[in-house]
Structure formats: structure tokens, C-alpha cells
């Protein structure tokens, strides 16, 4: 529906949009190009990727395991809460709903400082690190699941099944679970990507033996050569793919990007 008067504006608007997309991908692409050069200053004859995998491999596996834990734990906390808030509202449930998005507005460094000071005795425990990540990820789970529950005729389907004699467990298994599969999958992708990329909390709560990959990445920037830093960045980028898929899947649902990402 573009009128003739608007053709020029349409073209200008599109140029700007394409331009932004191009600027968004050029710097990472240039990093990618650099990552294929041999890292001479490390005294390393192989590829920069080999060097990163050899030196920071433990960080990669730690981040991977941490992100998977954060996904499961966020779902366990978020999905029941979202279900409760929509299907069984209680006094103050609106307030709770508002409360879940508060962490998204809190700067990561403030939270990291607060956790360090509040739990100084437990410092260095990975559970604390996971909890810091979850502060940012739970909000996405609650919001996505709530949106689905509100928009689908869940109550009607549930009531219909009940009048037909389905037990609570049956309804949960046959009606609620299948409807929630898609939003839960979407939320999992987003949670994984946030945890994988989270720097603020990870950097301050990291220990040498439990160094999340984003914190290790900072190490490569300050102490390694260009190709190694670039290769580490490229590996890090792989973790961005779930988020990119998620944004496409999200389609029409509303979705803010808070401090977490």
C-alpha cells in the first residue's frame, strides 16, 4: 500500500534499513576474516582456532554447561509461575507480574557488586554465577509463556476437557504441555543465548577455574594477538545463532531486549 507520492521516501527508507543491516554485520565479518591468519606472536604454527580451543577450551565447556543449567533452572522457575499468574490469579499477582521484569532494568555491574557483597562467603561458587544469569533470563521465560497462555484459548480447552472427564494430570499432559512446547522452545533459545553472551555478572563473579567464555574473551583481547582474539570472537558468535533463530520464530510476539543481552 504505497502511494505514488511515497515511492521516493520508500526507496530512501529502504536504503537506510539495508544500510543499518550492512553496518551491523560488517565489523564481525572483518573479525572473521582476520581470524584465519596464523597467530604468529603466540609462537603458534597452527590456526588461531586451534589455539583458542587448546587454551580456552575449559572456558567453552564451562560456559556451555552453565548456559544449559541456566536454561533448565529458568524454565523450572518461570513456567510454573507464568502458568499460576495466568490460570490462577491471586491477590497481588499483577504486582508479581510487574516485578518479574524489574531485573531487566538493573545494570549488570550493580547486580554483580550486590551479589559479591551480599554473598561474600560463597564467592567463587558457580551456582551464584548461574543465579546472576537467571535474574535476567527468568523474565523472558515468564513473559513469553504468559503471552502464549493469554492469547491461546487455553481456559476454554481446559474447561472442555474437564467437563469431558479428563483428570488434572491428563489435562496437563494432553492440553497444557503441547500448547506450551513452542513458547518453551523459544524461551530456551533466548535464555541460552543470553547466558552464553552475558559479560557483566560473569566477569566479576568469575574465578580462574570457573571462567565463563565471555570473560575469557576479554582476556584474549587484552593479552593475545589479533587473529586469536578474532577467532575467539568468531567462536563466541556461534552462540548468537540461537538468538537469531529465536527472533525469527518470535514473529508477532512482543519482545524487549533488556540489560541481559
Amino acid at each position, binding site marked *: 500500500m504505497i502511494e505514488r507520492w511515497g515511492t521516493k521516501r520508500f526507496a530512501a527508507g529502504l536504503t537506510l534499513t539495508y544500510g543499518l543491516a550492512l553496518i551491523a554485520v560488517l565489523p564481525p565479518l572483518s573479525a572473521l576474516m582476520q581470524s584465519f591468519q596464523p597467530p604468529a606472536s603466540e609462537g603458534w604454527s597452527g590456526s588461531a582456532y586451534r589455539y583458542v580451543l587448546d587454551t580456552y577450551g575449559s572456558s567453552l565447556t564451562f560456559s556451555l554447561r552453565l548456559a544449559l543449567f541456566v536454561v533448565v533452572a529458568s524454565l523450572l522457575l518461570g513456567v510454573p509461575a507464568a502458568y499460576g499468574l495466568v490460570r490462577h490469579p491471586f491477590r497481588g499477582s499483577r504486582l508479581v507480574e510487574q516485578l518479574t521484569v524489574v531485573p531487566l532494568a538493573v545494570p549488570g555491574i550493580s547486580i554483580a557488586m550486590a551479589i559479591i557483597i551480599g554473598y561474600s562467603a560463597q564467592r567463587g561458587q558457580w551456582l551464584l554465577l548461574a543465579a546472576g544469569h537467571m535474574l535476567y533470563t527468568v523474565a523472558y521465560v515468564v513473559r513469553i509463556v504468559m503471552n502464549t497462555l493469554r492469547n491461546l484459548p487455553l481456559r476454554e480447552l481446559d474447561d472442555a476437557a474437564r467437563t469431558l472427564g479428563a483428570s488434572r494430570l491428563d489435562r496437563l499432559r494432553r492440553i497444557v504441555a503441547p500448547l506450551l512446547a513452542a513458547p518453551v522452545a523459544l524461551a530456551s533459545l533466548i535464555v541460552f543465548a543470553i547466558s552464553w553472551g*552475558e559479560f557483566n555478572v560473569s566477569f566479576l563473579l568469575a574465578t580462574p577455574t570457573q571462567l565463563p567464555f565471555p570473560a575469557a574473551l576479554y582476556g584474549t583481547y587484552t593479552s593475545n594477538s589479533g587473529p586469536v582474539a578474532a577467532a575467539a570472537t568468531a567462536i563466541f558468535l556461534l552462540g548468537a545463532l540461537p538468538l537469531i533463530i529465536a527472533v525469527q520464530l518470535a514473529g508477532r510476539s512482543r519482545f524487549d531486549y533488556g540489560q541481559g543481552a
Partner: protein
Amino acid sequence: MMDVQERRSRWLGAALTAPLLLFFLLILAYPVGRLALLAAPNGMHVDAAMLRSLRNSLVLSLAVALVSIVVCIIPAWALARWNFRLKLLVRSALTVPIMFSGVVVGFLAILTIGRVGLVPRFLEMLTGKPLLSGAAYGATGLVLAYLYFEIPRATLALESAFREMNIDYEAAAATLGLGPVGRMRRVIAPLARRAIISTFLLTFSVSLGSYGVALMLSRRLTLLPVDIYTAFTGFLDDERAATMSLMLLLFALIGAACSRFLEGTAE
């Protein structure tokens, strides 16, 4: 009978939400409380250096949010309403910078506009002078690096707000004979205003809290999040770091609260 069922439903809701509330209490409320207790004994002493960093952070974040919102309105509208080629790819491309944590953006800034970055080398080929060389380390580079991830973030956030806007009003206005300019002024602009302000505040609040970029790039310009980091790790001054963390928290929350409030009244 109904009453009992109703009460059971409420209890069930509260019980399902309780673990999440407990989590927030343990990981958000309690630590922030401890932070405030630590900052309180010296009377939340705020000195000139802290105020300077706060001012720098506020000015930078406001400038970045302002430029972002101006640039992102048209692309957000295009993504929400127009049909064009490679739309999926464009949206994916815009997701890339959002995913990067601040330090990655800082590193990319050094690669592109650092001393021997791509852009200065390219400009040297064109003009004979390495323009923008080393820009990454000054205020210009800092602003460009923030814009790199804030413009896409603002675009995608505004796009989803635009998509939620009801097209029926526009259709009605068109049927009643209002032209495209009139529709833009009288129908779309009033509806979009809240979404735009809310996106502006979100961008401001995120910029304020971001510290990876400044950690990589900021040489002279002091920003509040970097100051917190140096106070804590460099000078081991927990109280100072705690006071500044609370300052940062306060301003970020004010921005976000205004944003939420506007969203809440958008219906």
C-alpha cells in the same frame, strides 16, 4: 462450593509463583539491601569524581538514545509495515549487534576505527589521510560503538511496538478521505508517540548500565560503570563501589520505570 474452588485456585497460583519470588528475594532484594547497608555508614558520601562520572554517563546515554531513536524510526516502520526483499535477512543482521556483550563491541570498534582499523585504512586509500584513525579511543569512538548496538536494539523494540498498533484506525481515516500526510500526522504519530518515548527510555537505561565497551575503549572519559569496576578491583574500595552501584541502579530504574509506565498507559 464455588468459593472453595476459587480459594483453592488462588492458593495454587500463589504456590506456583512462590519459588520465583523467593529467588528474587535471595538474588535481588537481599544483595541490593546489603549493598545499601555497606554504602550507608559513610552517609552515601558522593564526591566530585563520582558526580563527574555520573554526568559523563548520563550525557553519553542521553545522546546515544536520542540519535538511536531518530535513526531507528523509519527502519522500524519499514520492518513492521512494508514488504521488501531480504526482510528476514535484514532482521537477522540487526540481531547480531544485540547479541554481543560490550567488550566484543569494543574489540570490533578497535578493529574498524582503531589506529590501523579498516575504516581509516579505507579512507586513506580514498583521501590520502588516515581519517578517523584511533577514533575508537576517544569520545567519538565511544558514541559510535554504543550506537552500533543501540540502534539495532531500538529498531527491533520499536518494530514490535509498531506491529502491535491497530491498523483499523488508519484504514478508517483513509476511508473517510484523510490523505497519507494527514494520516501520519493525525493518526499514526499520536499512536506511535508512547512507543517511541518508551523505546528511547529503554535505550537510555541500557546504555547507562553498559560497561564492556567503555572498559575496552575509554581512556580519558570516566564513566560510572567503569569507575565502579576500578574502585572495586583496583582500589579494593568496596564502599565507594557500593555507593556508585546504587547511584547507577537508581538512574537506570528511573528510566525503566518511566518506560514501563508509558507502556502501561499505551492502551
